[in-house]
C-alpha cells in the first residue's frame, strides 16, 4: 500500500526544464476495483532543448481509501495499491489511451 498526494488542479509544478500540471483526476473501473488516474499536461519550455511538451496520464494505483486526510500543505492524501503486474499495466495503458486520444504516455507510480 502507498500514499498518493493529490496535487492542486491546474497548478504549475515547475522544474528548471519546464512544468507539468494536473488537468483532471479520474476513476476507471477495472478488475472490479477503481483505478485512480490523472490527466496531465507538460511543457519543457525552459529546457536546454526546449519547446516540446506532452499530454500524459499518471496512474497512482487502485484506490484503497480515497482522500483519507490532508497533509501539512493542505493537500488531500489517498491510500492506493500500486499496479505492478505487466499485463494489467498493458491493458490499462490500452484503455486509457483509447479513451484519451492524443495522450502518448501512460506512467505507473
Amino acid at each position, binding site marked *: 500500500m502507498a500514499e*498518493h*498526494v493529490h*496535487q492542486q488542479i491546474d497548478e504549475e*509544478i*515547475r*522544474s*528548471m*526544464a*519546464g*512544468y*507539468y500540471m494536473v488537468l483532471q483526476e479520474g476513476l476507471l473501473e477495472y478488475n472490479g476495483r477503481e483505478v485512480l488516474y*490523472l490527466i*496531465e499536461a*507538460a511543457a*519543457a*519550455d*525552459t*529546457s*536546454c*532543448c*526546449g*519547446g*516540446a511538451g*506532452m499530454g*500524459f496520464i*499518471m496512474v497512482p494505483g487502485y484506490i484503497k481509501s480515497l482522500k483519507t486526510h490532508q497533509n501539512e500543505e493542505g493537500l488531500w492524501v489517498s491510500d492506493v495499491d500500486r499496479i505492478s503486474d505487466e499485463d494489467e499495466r498493458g491493458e490499462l495503458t490500452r484503455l486509457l489511451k483509447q479513451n484519451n486520444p492524443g495522450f502518448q*504516455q501512460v*506512467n505507473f*507510480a
Partner: protein
Amino acid sequence: MATGIRDKVCILGMGCTKFGERWDMSAGDLMIDALRDALEDAGLEKKDLQAAWLGVHIDEVNIGKGGTYAGMNLHLPLIPVTRVENFCASGTEAFRGAAYGVASGAYDIALAIGVEKLKDTGYGGLPDSPAFGQEMIFLGPNATAPGLFAQLATAYAAKFNLPMERVKEAITHVSWKSHQNGAKNPRAHLRKAVSKEQIMGSPMVAYPLGLFDCCGVSDGSAAAIVTTPEIAKKLKPNDPLVKAKALQISVSSGEEAMFDKWDGAGVITTQTAARRAYEEAGIKDPRKEISMMEVHDCFSITELVTMEDLGISPPGGAPDDVLNGFFDLDGQVPCQPDGGLKCFGHPIGASGLRMIFEMYNQLLGRWPEDRAVKNPKFGLTHNLGGIPNGNVASVAIFGVD
C-alpha cells in the same frame, strides 16, 4: 619539471548576477553587474585589471566572436581580452586563462568573466548550431542533450545490474536535494522546493529522464579577479585567502566514441581530470578530504555517475550514498549547496564561474547558516560539456589556508 597550479593563484574577489530569464538585460548589461561586484569584493578599480579572459560558448546573437564585445561593453582599458570556449567548461577555461596569466608572472591582476544570454533566439533551449560539425548531421543521431546523457542510465543500470527503478529513486533524490538548497539561494533562477512525489510524478522526457531530471537555459554572468598569493596578502592582509589547489581539464580522445573498451556508465574525462586534480592538490582520500562540491548536474544521472567518476563514491555505490543523504547539505560531502544547474539553469559561459563563486563564498564562511557548509577545507567544482562519449571535463579544487 612542472609543479601544477597549487597555491600559485588567489581569488581576490568575485561577483555573480541573479540567473534567470533576464529579458531586460543584454549580455553586456549582465557582465557589468558581475564585474562591478567582483571589483567591489576585491577592493579594486577597473584600471587595475591587466588582462581578461571571456568565457562564452554559444551566444552569437549577442556577443559574436572574439573578445571585443567584452572590451567595448565593459570599457576595459585596452587590455588583452581573450575569448575562450570549451563547451560547458568555458567559464572554468576563462578562470584557467586568468590563473595561468598571473601564475606565470606575466600579469599581477587578471579578470575571468563568463556570460551567456540564451533568451533572444525566439524559441526555448539552446540555439541550433552544428556544435559537432556538419559531418555529424549525417553520421550522428537526431538527438538532444537530455537524450544523449540519458544513455548513461541504461549503461549504468546494465553495468551494476540494477533495476531502472533503483536508478530513478537515486536520481529523484539528487534533484530533490538540489531544489531544497536552491530554494534558499537569492541568486537562483528557480527558488521553489519540490517534493519527491512531485518529482516522481513528472512525465518522461528522454527515457529514463523525466522533467525534473533535466536542467534548463538561463541568462547570467559571473566574474573572478585573481592574483598571486604574495600580492593578495599585501592587498588583504587581514583576510583569509582562497587559493586554487588544482585546475585540470581533460578532453575526450575519441576512444569512448569509437573503441569498445568504455562501459558507457561513467565519464572517462571526469575520472582523468579528477585523478590529476587530486594529485595536483595533494589530496589522497577525496571521500574524506573534499568538503563540498559543485558538479555539472545538467541531468541528474550525470550528477549520479559523477560521484563515482570523482572517486567520492565507490563503483556502484553512488545510489546508496545519495539515498543515505551523503551528499545532502547536512551530509558528509554536500553537493550543489547553491542548488546547482537545477536551480540556476545553465548560462554556459557563466556556470563554471558560478560554481567557483559558491565554493569561494563557502570557504570564506560568508553565507547565512541555513545554507552554509560547516568548516569547509577543500571545495571542488566540476564541469562537463559535450556528450558522454565526446566531451571536455574540468575539475578545479579550491581551499583556504
